[in-house]
């Protein structure tokens, strides 16, 4: 009995330590909380966005609600790869069945784990996307598909089961925030949208590396196929989108391949880059990082433009007549406006 109690104590201490050591993403990389915030908002969404920073920074779901009465959520995370998108979609479809899933195609250019960049950065992005997922077969699959070579060597999936194995040496960097957010994190997003209020106008275009690989890779296509299949099985319409942005380059060669793919499978594919003028994006005011991503004013314009397509071409209904849904979204809208006010105020001072 005494032994059992001591053992129990030890396990509790280890658990607390692990919770303490895991990064809380409260600094300038708030993205680490995006994936985990979904579970409180699961259900009742007509649209789910899936993809990388080009979705969670470039579309504002609140605008979609305000202008079209479309309830939506963004399951985006930084440098999300196609295989991660697939497993996130699989997981999401277990929580709810939206009418439309919007997938941002930019990540198709990354064909393998190695091609996404150097190991340590890849590993950090893996953590940001995967650590936030709740345990399920989808998480396991996502982990297996995402592990870098170095991660495999050091215990791989095991370090996702016991994150303390990964963050064990963070004790020297702990701050009071690690205690404050030990059990409950701060909510950083609005329905998966990570608000940026800064303005850094685009000046010179970024020099772009040449196109060395004209065809998007087999592995990417394979996972996109799986997403298409998944949506078919669940009766969900899959829409492919390339969100606005000037850099990194979305080559016409790639665009053509996606367009062909979409035509063959009767999918809607919207490349928003040529429509930037129509959308009204002004690269001197609507970007916070000189043309890579949109700030809140740009994201609202993009959502406003895209919402019309969702309404007209996908036939999504206006839910503003449903008082229950309305109440929920009014709350969200209020939080969004409050956040916007606060951030703009901080930015001004």
């Amino acid at each position: 009995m005494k032994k059992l109690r001591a053992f129990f104590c030890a396990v509790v201490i280890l658990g607390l330590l692990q919770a303490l050591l895991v990064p809380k993403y409260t600094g300038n990389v708030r993205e680490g909380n995006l994936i985990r915030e979904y579970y409180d908002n699961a259900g009742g969404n007509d649209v789910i966005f899936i993809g990388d920073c080009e979705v969670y920074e470039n579309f504002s779901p609140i605008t979609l609600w305000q202008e079209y009465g479309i309830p939506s959520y963004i399951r985006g995370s930084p440098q999300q790869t196609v295989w991660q998108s697939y497993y996130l979609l699989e997981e999401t479809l277990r929580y709810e069945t939206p009418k439309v899933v919007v997938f941002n195609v930019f990540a198709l250019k990354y064909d393998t784990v190695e091609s996404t960049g150097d190991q340590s950065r890849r590993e950090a992005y893996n953590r940001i996307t995967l650590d936030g997922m709740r345990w399920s077969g989808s998480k396991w699959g996502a982990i297996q598909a995402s592990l870098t070579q170095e991660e495999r060597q050091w215990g791989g999936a095991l370090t996702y089961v016991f994150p303390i194995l990964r963050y064990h040496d963070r004790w020297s960097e702990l701050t009071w925030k690690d205690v404050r957010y030990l059990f409950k994190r701060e909510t950083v997003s609005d329905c998966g949208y990570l608000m940026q209020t800064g303005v850094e106008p685009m000046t010179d275009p970024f020099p772009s590396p040449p196109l060395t690989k004209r065809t998007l890779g087999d592995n990417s296509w394979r996972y996109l196929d799986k997403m298409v299949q998944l949506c078919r099985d669940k009766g969900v319409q899959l829409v492919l989108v390339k969100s606005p942005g000037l850099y990194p380059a979305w080559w016409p060669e790639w665009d053509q391949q996606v367009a062909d793919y979409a035509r063959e499978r009767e999918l809607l594919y919207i490349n928003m880059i040529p429509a930037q003028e129509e959308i009204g994006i002004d690269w001197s005011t609507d970007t916070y990082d000189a043309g890579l991503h949109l700030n809140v004013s740009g994201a609202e314009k993009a959502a406003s433009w895209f919402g019309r397509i969702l309404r007209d071409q996908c036939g999504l209904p206006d839910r503003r007549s449903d008082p229950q849904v309305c109440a929920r979204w009014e709350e969200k809208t209020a939080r969004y406006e409050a956040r916007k006010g606060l951030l703009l105020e901080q930015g001004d001072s």
Partner: protein
Amino acid sequence: MMKKRLCMILACLILGLTACGQEEQTVSGGDPVFSAGGVEIVIHADAAPILEALGEPTSYSETPSCAGEGMDKTYGYGSFYLLTGLGEDGEVVSRLWLADDTVATPEGIRIGSDEEQVEAAYPDAACCEDGSCSTYWIDGATASLAVVLEDGKVTAIEYSAAGQTSCD
């Protein structure tokens, strides 16, 4: 008796040697090198000494990546661009591409060279046919060099980390 013994020893030796031989492939393969301003530049190299040797760049920009700030830095030197990222020990070279035909690879290939010249300069290169173009990949252990040809002429030359290179 003696014969049998000899056979056995021979068999074992061959077994051992085949095992030996298989390993050596992975050991070989130096990464492709670009040289400019008196320095040799390879992908994954520490950027600081290279940037110092190359002097003031003619253009410079920082491109944030998805999360985290100012991670990629692009240095332009007129005839070529150098992209650096954050490696394990600080800033490292992650990409390099040629911008015009005033510079060439150490093997003598520049933008505008023709296919024969490329094949002569890189006899071991893997050629990936890609629609109307072809890309010659020169793979090292951790980096590779891509030479892109369009209508038989080189249109782009880029050094990058390995892994992005295998033909589809």
